[in-house]
């Protein structure tokens, strides 16, 4: 339970960062490979609809060729749709018309990479040995000689 909450929180952080750095992206949803929404920049109802449409779009597109599909974009008259996947999840995003596709893909892949990589843990502080002990050991060593 705590793990999934942590993942959802990480996904929300990644999307917040994504919308901050990319001015082209209007809406974005992170979903697992079964279509479950992990995070979204929009409300739950619309996020669910986007997740279902994105999963179906990706599955049908993947079935087009023998090779495995890694990303797609659909350019429509009133906007564009992007879907990118990694081993665990997909990210779907929408933009206005005529986006810079390469940049959008780059930002989406960076967001996915950020989710896949575990955050580095802070290093534990090392304690210094008390000075008294060192002198005691030396004393004992002196006694033994």
């Amino acid at each position, binding site marked *: 339970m705590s793990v999934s909450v942590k993942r959802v929180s990480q996904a929300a952080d990644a999307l917040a960062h994504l919308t901050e750095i990319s001015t082209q992206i*209007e*809406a974005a949803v992170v979903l697992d490979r079964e279509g479950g929404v992990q995070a979204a920049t*929009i409300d739950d109802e*619309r996020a669910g*609809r*986007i997740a279902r*449409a*994105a999963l*179906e*779009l990706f599955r*049908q*597109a993947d079935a*087009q*060729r023998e*090779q*495995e*599909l*890694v*990303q*797609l*974009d*659909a*350019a*429509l*008259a*009133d*906007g564009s*749709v992007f879907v990118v996947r990694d081993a665990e999840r997909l990210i*779907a995003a*929408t933009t206005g018309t*005529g986006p810079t*596709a390469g940049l959008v893909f780059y930002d989406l892949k960076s967001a996915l990479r950020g989710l896949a990589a575990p955050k580095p843990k802070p290093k534990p502080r090392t304690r210094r040995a008390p000075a008294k002990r060192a002198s005691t050991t030396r004393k004992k060593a002196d006694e033994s000689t």
Partner: protein
Amino acid sequence: MRARKALVVGAAIGSAVGAVALRRRAGRSRDRVELYFDDGSLVTLAQGSSEAVPLLLHARELLAAARG
């Protein structure tokens, strides 16, 4: 005579520029899907092809959902 010649040349240039602009606009407004595969290949499915129809349908659903 010179004015007439200039009018003809102007009309020819204008129609050529207009044709290029119209063609560009038509090309841009045409819906399409681009698929990127893990071997680096790219497949473009343009509106009108049987493969593109279901994909564009889902893409439109997705865009409509995003915009409420």
